């Protein structure tokens, strides 16, 4: 609606060229670089034309938050500060996004849980904030180790939820995530999750886009809700009277509001498929045995498949990239021929297996495990052992098996 002029081809104050995102991500030359996941977050943010980043230290995202502080000092981020707690950070993110800024933050584990009240508020207010979640244990006794249980709490907040396997996923999805999140028919926050330490603290070769190219800035005039101003503060949308009244129209408004948030999650499907080439990826999906996983459990699954191949056992793989919107159709199609569906997970409850069981016919095919938690690693051998047990083959007993 606004009279905006395209900034594509012009330069920002750091001399970076605002570049068409599709060209930047798909056509620009890439430079292989050997970085930790945290450093990759920094490099993605360098190119993200981010207006505001708000930080609070909690392992294992602290390094990324600190590195983005360096970016601010270098002049790549519009504003940067530390909040008083994760709850404060997420509230401050909302304020910045209400004001029309492109906002970024990072959190993990108990930080995610502490801030939880804000996430449905972000969705309800249609704020396209991007939050990196470097998953870790949330339980008592205190654990800082990798564990994906916190993702399950995010699934019903109305946020988009993506689960990166590698640092390369991370780099690409941070930048592409803004493109999906900021579409006016979506305009929702994105929780971009990874498995803490496994991705954040290990080095990997990541192909980076040129550092002198950056995303076009966020255009708040495309927002589906009015930007905050003193004439029409958005908080007025949510205060008394309709919030507090017990009558049909009050309920109808709330119901419509919630439906609209979840419709926006659904509408993100089209854009997400275009930007990250599908909500899932498959390899040998015609195999009778399939590993279906998300995050670094996918990497462990790949290794298990290689070990099984050495023994002449053919096994396929479904990598779930996006958890919200849930790729139900894709999973039904990918698993239609599978007799055994193995779901390895880094959490105690097996939330991904439950989601898959609720999605496919003949759900007894789903084997909810192996599962590890509390920071345990998942050697590919335990996935191999699980599969061989299912196939009625004798295996050596292994400690640490879930389910």
């Amino acid at each position: 609606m606004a009279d905006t002029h395209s900034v594509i081809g012009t330069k920002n104050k750091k001399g970076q060229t605002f570049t068409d995102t599709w060209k930047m991500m798909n056509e620009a030359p890439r430079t292989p670089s050997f970085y930790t996941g945290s450093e990759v977050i920094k490099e993605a943010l360098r190119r993200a034309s981010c207006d505001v980043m708000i930080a609070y230290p909690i392992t294992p995202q602290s390094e990324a938050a600190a590195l983005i502080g360096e970016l601010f000092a270098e002049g790549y981020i519009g504003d940067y500060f530390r909040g008083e707690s994760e709850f404060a950070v997420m509230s401050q993110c909302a304020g910045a996004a209400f004001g029309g800024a492109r906002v970024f933050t990072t959190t993990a584990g108990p930080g995610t849980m502490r801030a939880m009240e804000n996430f449905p508020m972000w969705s309800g207010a249609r704020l396209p904030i991007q939050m990196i979640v470097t998953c870790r244990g949330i339980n008592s006794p205190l654990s800082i180790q990798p564990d994906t249980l916190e993702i399950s709490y995010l699934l019903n907040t109305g946020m988009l939820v993506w689960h990166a396997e590698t640092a390369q996923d991370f780099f690409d999805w941070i930048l592409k995530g803004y493109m999906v999140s900021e579409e006016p028919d979506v305009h929702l926050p994105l929780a971009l999750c990874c498995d803490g330490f496994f991705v954040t603290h290990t080095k990997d070769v990541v192909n980076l886009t040129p550092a002198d190219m950056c995303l076009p800035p966020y255009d708040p005039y495309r927002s589906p809700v009015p930007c905050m101003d003193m004439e029409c503060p958005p908080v007025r949308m949510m205060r008394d009277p309709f919030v507090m009244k017990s009558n049909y129209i009050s309920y109808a408004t709330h119901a419509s509001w919630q439906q609209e948030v979840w419709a926006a999650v659904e509408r993100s499907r089209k854009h997400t498929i275009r930007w990250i080439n599908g909500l899932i990826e498959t390899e040998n999906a015609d195999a009778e045995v399939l590993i279906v996983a998300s995050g670094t459990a996918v990497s462990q699954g790949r290794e298990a498949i290689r070990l099984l191949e050495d023994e002449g056992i053919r096994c396929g793989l479904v990598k779930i990239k996006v958890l919200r919107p849930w790729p139900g159709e894709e999973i039904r199609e990918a698993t239609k021929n599978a007799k055994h569906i193995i779901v390895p997970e880094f959490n105690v409850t097996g939330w991904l297996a439950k989601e898959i069981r609720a999605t496919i016919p003949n759900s007894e095919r789903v084997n909810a495990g192996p599962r590890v938690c509390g920071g345990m690693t998942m050697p590919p051998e335990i996935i191999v052992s699980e599969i061989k047990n299912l196939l009625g083959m004798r295996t050596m007993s292994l400690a640490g098996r879930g389910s």
Partner: protein
Amino acid sequence: MGICLPNPGEAHINGVIVPEEKAYEEAAKQFLMAKVPTLFPGPLVLWAWNEKAAKKATAIRHLYNTLKECVQPGQTPMLIPMPDYRPKYPKINPEVEINPNHPNLTIWHNKIDCCMFIGVHCHQANLSLKIIRGGTSCYTIAMCAQAGHEDAMLSFRDASVEKIMKLADAVKRLKGSVKPRLTSAKHGA
């Protein structure tokens, strides 16, 4: 929820993606059939906050005038603004405005059986369209400046002055060829 919205150059009618040209015809027909065809302009076109908004407002006025010229006796085109999204519970004046949180009041009060949203922020539009759809039998059209609305029965996308004028042209073209409904919208679902 969850229909696929149209791509540029397309529109949707009852959730079916169609070429935009077909939607102009259908929208014009619905206007000419209705007893109370109504335009609901929102804040994005009610104030001249940029040149494009002012031009759109002029085009909407032209569409309204076209409707008045093309309808038959007994049909009453209306232009009712949706200026403010803040709730004004328990009372709005449905004579002069539509409140996005209580759109059914305006629809019921004026017996509106066909309406078009334009210049309404997408979230508020979808919210109102859902309530209208759930509580009235009004035919809803959205002339959306962004990606379109699945909650309208017919939706354009990428609204522009040209598209509004094209819709007015379609109304003019179909003048006299569409039989108006004899009754207005029912008050309930």
